[in-house]
């Protein structure tokens, strides 16, 4: 023990005995591995392109500082004096603020319905597939097959699925819902089966040992154990689908508030209406956040 301490003091004073820890007279505390070299090169390339992009950006002769001020001003107008044009929501010009609001809520409802329908459809399919794919509930072959197929579904972006189904169904709500459901299956099946897999195999075995049937085990042990995470995943997906449904309203003609947003932004150039719609969407998003928190608390009261 004492010899180790004295070795340490001499080392601090002058020569350090372990040569491989030293480079150019300094103690090295991290080794350069190939992985680290790769990471550094990638970072260097990214930094280069970022700088290059900023320096060579085509501003079309705009006065950057002035444009910046203007942008801030537009945002200010957008969110401080939002209002909707009655005729854009299918109302007569003379309609008051509240009826227009109600009609906008109705359009927002369409977007929510698109999100709800695709989450529900996708969720149900994902639940069944998730049970079949969970490693502790089936054999490896079925599990791997399903997981492989679903990984492919998940790898294709939602928009692409919508466009693929638009070939058959035409652009519109049907293609949007089918496409969104497809990607929802891909996402939720993985999330569900992973939460099923968290259940200890011993629990399943214990029920099997007492003569319980497969469906009993699923509904009496697997589901109660994973209900919280299933609910939160489903809700997270609903939030995602809501955002996607807004985009699909514009991109795939699925209708709903997204289409109005598209019209006011790309056709009417109505900043104040954009603000109106954006605020509505924001409120819905916040509400969903609150509901999600409540749900979690309700189903897992002691885990908080």
């Amino acid at each position: 023990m004492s010899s180790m301490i004295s070795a340490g003091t001499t080392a601090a004073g002058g020569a350090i005995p372990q040569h491989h820890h030293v480079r150019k007279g300094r103690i090295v505390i991290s080794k350069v591995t190939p992985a680290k070299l790769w990471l550094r090169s990638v970072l260097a390339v990214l930094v280069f392109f970022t700088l290059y992009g900023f320096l060579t950006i085509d501003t079309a002769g705009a006065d950057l500082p002035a444009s910046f001020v203007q942008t801030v001003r537009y945002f200010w107008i957008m969110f401080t004096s939002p209002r909707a044009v009655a005729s854009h929501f299918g109302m007569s010009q003379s309609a008051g603020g509240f009826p227009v609001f109600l009609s906008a809520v109705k359009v927002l409802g369409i977007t929510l319905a698109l999100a709800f329908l695709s989450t529900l459809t996708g969720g149900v399919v994902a639940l069944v597939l998730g049970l079949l794919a969970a490693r502790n509930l089936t054999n490896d072959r079925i599990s791997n097959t399903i997981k492989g197929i679903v990984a492919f579904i998940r790898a294709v972006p939602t928009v692409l699925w919508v466009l693929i189904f638009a070939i058959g169904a035409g652009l519109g709500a049907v293609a949007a819902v089918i496409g969104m459901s497809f990607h929802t299956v891909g996402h939720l099946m993985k999330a569900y089966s992973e939460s099923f897999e968290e259940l200890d195999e011993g629990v399943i075995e214990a029920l099997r040992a007492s003569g319980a049937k497969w469906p009993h085990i699923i509904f009496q042990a697997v589901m109660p154990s994973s209900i919280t995470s299933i609910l939160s995943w489903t809700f997270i997906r609903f939030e995602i689908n809501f955002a996607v449904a807004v985009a699909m309203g514009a991109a795939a003609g699925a209708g709903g508030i997204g289409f109005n947003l598209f019209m006011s932004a790309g056709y009417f150039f109505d900043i104040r209406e954009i603000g109106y719609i954006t605020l509505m969407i924001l409120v819905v998003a916040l509400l969903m956040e609150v509901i999600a928190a409540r749900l979690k608390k309700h189903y897992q009261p002691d885990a908080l």
Partner: protein
Amino acid sequence: MPQLHVKNLTKYYKDVLALSDVSFAVEKGDFVGIIGPSGSGKTTLVRCINRLITATGGEICLNNDKNILEMNRSEIRKARTGIGMIFQHYNLVDRLTVIENVLHGRLGYKNTVSGVFGHYTEGEKRKALEVLGLLGLDEHVYRRCDQLSGGQKQRVGIARALVQEPEIILCDEPISSLDPGSSKKIMDYLRKIQSELGITILVNLHQVDVARTYAKRILGFNNGKLVYDGPSELLTTERIQEIYGKEAHELILN
């Protein structure tokens, strides 16, 4: 006529021989301790009895009924209702309450629909409460299982086995995860179940002294072979050496 009859039982995992030509019989109401070093086949034996594992060869008969190795799915399921099982890690559904876990012991008697929806009869619920009372768990009936101590969880495990109204209970190292105090309590409950309810108990243990204290009869395994089958009083130091190997005996006896 013995209640449980095991004849020439053999189990291979691929080419690993886990049980080699094991034969013994157990009378109704016996308390049997199964000992042996780890890897000697104790777990494999108890799992073969309720067919969680299918043995490679041999015969297992309960009450002179059909050989468990030759049963089809529904026959196995029916046979399992009569065999309770208790595990080292309790294997309860943590998110559910004590009584919900205990009632799981009745699923074996239910059809698909009523089991899926968890419809239990008043009689079954009464039975569950009665069993919980017997195990001193009255105050914890509605507690979630993840809030219980290890000893309490194991008592819930025992309760789940008891509502099955089994004629035999298999225990795979029921006290290996417990402190000495809780271990004694659990072993005392098992003894009570055997003596008062007349249920046969087969228990894997790796503490020889515990096996000797509680079991009237000991089965000693070494490397898949049954090397000792007799009353616990005759389990001498030489016999223990035969089961555990020469080097081990000092460790075990201290």
